[in-house]
């Protein structure tokens, strides 16, 4: 029966090729716009480490001056970061299963065989825990050990891209490279790893390229590498030398902990509160106590990672799809009604209302499916174009506009939606047409 309905639908399309093309085209545009905005929205709003949402926490403490001015004056801009003293103290806790200090630095790598000039790299100054808690994959070698953090030892982990650039992708573990003219031993090379949004450091931007290389935080401090991200200072703090920065209460270091259960969470909270109270007594931290542990999902919402523009565009896309579908309903309806005499004949020859309904629903479904297939192809092309257009920059659309298999699912879902919205009413309406009336006028 279905085959027969499809043949009938094709026949009807041959009668009105212009209208059919119009409907398919409108649905295709509507669906492709939805897929593009959905893809970007989905990538933006995703939690790239969802499997650890209940164990991974960003740590914050309101360390601002009592009456702050300037960039952090707003009540919602609680500092994300810690000063050197606070970060190193809290990092010293043995409660978390894993813990990581996360700071951004900059340095130049030189001395690799494939290198003619020193290359300025984006450095993540961190600790061993970073790789373990964020499930960072390694291509060669692995993270440095706890001793390297304490030492600190001059060890370095390269990103896959950086290793490609410097060593032509060869296993460079064990080799030595110069960071700002100091020899560092390569202990690991990452596999491809660039989670979006960059949940582990949202201070400068939410989307972008991952760091080129990773070194123990203490090694970076030993080399006096200045922070390369966001530094916030209060009051009289205005560090001009490295010792001044280390001694200041300017914040520039993120702290992450992995706390596997409620007991460890409570334990760590108590540890923070005790530190806060001691500092409060000494005259620091004069604001109301605000010590927080942020699970990744809340951390992402807190930072407004999903931009208003992308939300707006998503809604616009759906409004556009709605207009396209209403348009299809209208055209289908008028088309069906025009062919009402034919339906009358079919009814008179014994087709039940259900058959008429199904026949017309199939016709709309074929259009919706064709529109979705075309829309899928269009969205692929559009995403490619957007990606190419913005690939150079750190633009969210450039980074996130990748066609993913989810696009096929979106398309199928939207096709079903289109069929239901655009097909049900016209098919039902044509089923209600009294056959006698149209037989009479033949």
């Amino acid at each position, binding site marked *: 029966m279905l085959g027969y309905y499809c043949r009938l639908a094709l026949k009807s399309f041959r009668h009105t090729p212009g*209208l059919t093309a*119009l409907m398919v085209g*409108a649905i295709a*545009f*509507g669906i492709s716009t939805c897929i593009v905005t959905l893809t970007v929205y989905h990538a933006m709003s995703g939690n790239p480490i969802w499997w650890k949402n209940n164990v991974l926490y960003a740590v914050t403490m309101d360390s601002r*001056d*009592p*009456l*702050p*001015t*300037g*960039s952090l004056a707003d009540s919602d801009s609680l500092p994300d970061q810690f000063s050197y003293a606070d970060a190193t103290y809290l990092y010293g806790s043995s409660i978390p299963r894993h813990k990581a200090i996360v700071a951004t630095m*900059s*340095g*130049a790598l030189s001395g690799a065989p494939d290198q003619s*000039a*020193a*290359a*300025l790299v984006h450095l993540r100054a961190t600790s061993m825990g970073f790789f373990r808690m964020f499930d960072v994959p390694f291509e060669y070698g692995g993270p440095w050990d706890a001793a390297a953090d304490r030492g600190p030892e001059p060890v370095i982990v390269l990103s896959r891209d950086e290793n490609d650039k410097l060593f032509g992708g060869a296993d460079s573990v064990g080799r030595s490279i110069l960071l*700002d*003219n100091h020899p560092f031993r390569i202990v690991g090379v990452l596999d491809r790893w660039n989670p979006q949004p960059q949940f582990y450091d949202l201070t*400068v931007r939410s989307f972008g390229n991952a760091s080129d290389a990773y070194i123990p935080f203490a090694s970076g401090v030993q080399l*006096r*590498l*200045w922070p390369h991200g966001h*530094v916030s200072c*209060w*009051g*009289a703090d*205005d*560090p*001009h*030398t490295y*010792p*001044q920065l280390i001694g200041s209460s300017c914040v520039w270091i993120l702290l992450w902990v992995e706390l596997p259960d409620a007991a460890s969470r409570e334990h760590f909270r108590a540890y923070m509160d005790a530190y806060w109270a001691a500092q409060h007594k000494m005259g620091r931290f004069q604001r109301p106590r605000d010590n927080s542990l942020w699970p990744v999902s809340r951390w992402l919402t807190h930072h407004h990672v999903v931009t*208003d523009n992308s*939300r*707006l*565009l998503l809604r*616009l896309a759906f*409004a*556009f799809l*709605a*207009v*396209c579908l*209403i*348009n299809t*309903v*209208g*055209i289908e*309806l*008028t*088309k069906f*009604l*025009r062919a009402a005499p034919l339906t009358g004949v079919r009814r008179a020859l014994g087709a039940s209302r259900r058959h008429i309904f199904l026949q017309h629903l199939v016709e709309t479904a074929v259009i919706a499916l064709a529109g979705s297939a075309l829309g899928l192809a269009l969205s692929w092309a559009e995403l490619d174009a957007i990606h190419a257009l913005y690939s150079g*920059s750190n*633009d969210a*659309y450039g980074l996130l506009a990748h066609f993913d298999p989810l696009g096929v699912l979106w398309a199928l879902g939207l096709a079903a939606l289109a069929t239901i919205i655009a097909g049900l*009413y016209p098919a039902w*309406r044509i089923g209600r047409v009294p056959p006698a009336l149209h037989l009479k006028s033949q």
Partner: protein
Amino acid sequence: MSTGVTMHINVPPLFSALRRNPAGALLVLAQIAITLAVLCNAASIVAHAIARMDLPSGFDTRDTFVIDVESQSNRFDIPSAEREDVAYLRGLPDVVAATITSGRPLTHDGTFDGMGRAPGTTGASVLSSKLPVDEQGLSALGVPLVAGRNFRADEIVADSATGTPQQSGEIIISESLARALFPDGHALGSTVYNGGTNPLTIIGITRDFMGPQGDEPSYNVYLAPEMSGAYGFYELFVRARPGRRDIVQRIANRHIAAAHPDAVIAFSQTMADARQLMDADNRNMTIFLSAVTALMIAVCCLGMFGLTAFNVNSRIRQIGVRRAVGARRRDIVAHFVAESALILGAGAVLGSVFALALGQWLSDHYGEPRLDLAYVLASIVTLWAIGQLAAWQPARRAASVPPSVATRTI
């Protein structure tokens, strides 16, 4: 056509005709209403995005560029390196002016302070960006002073060997910042504080320009006569003679890269590129909104076209009858045009309600500016005109139905 002839449209037949296919008309009406609501809000958002892109930078963005030099070793002597570089640049024949700085206008790269009229962190403050410059800062930017004076060469302070900040007590501020700090005027010569206890005297006021930017475009900026080596980098802001920017930039890049084995050029960016990047979000939003809205209008008009064409086709006989009993061609056209006008009118009323509700919601949730009624009116006129055009062609076809049709099939 003589002016004495009146076009006569019978209203009752209009409604009775619509009643025969109410669903079709209602669906087109719904499309028009949604499209109208989107159109006026999109137009409003696009207009504001364009206005933001049109905000003047206030300084010479055409002939200027910034080079950022990052230290690669503790041996690297930033104060002498920056002095060497700036002297070299000033010696180039195509350079108008060059200054040492550590902030980039039009980007997020810079220092932001809360400026207030009271010392310390008490009292109200205005978030301002700081642009450290030397005596050539103003001429490198191409920003004129509106009051007061420029820094003298001997007033530019550098960090001492121990790193103790040698703060200057003098600053130059923009007109916007002057107005924000001193609404009643007399900013020149007054004292302000940047969160610390060190008083800063305003010695000059410049015409507004965009310094390093926060999230929203801002003209609150102050110039400080400082060369700081903190954070292990320095920047050079260079203004070339008109048309010579790219050549100067190439020469400067090559020279600086060769001159300092212990440093690396992190980037070298023209201010024209910086402005492009700053406007990227607004530009993308404008393109996307315009494209989708245009497609939406097109689909909506095709719907109107399709409905009118269907009505014409299914009423060929009635048209023939009307023609046979004396209706002129233009009466037939008028009937169908009036029918579409009725749908458009109803769609416009419903759409305006949607539009205002959507506008309210957008300004509540997304901080978009309130929807101006002018956008609603302009959108109605636009959509109406396009909708009428869409109905025009099938209506004309209806008018060409010969009166003889009436006699043929009965």
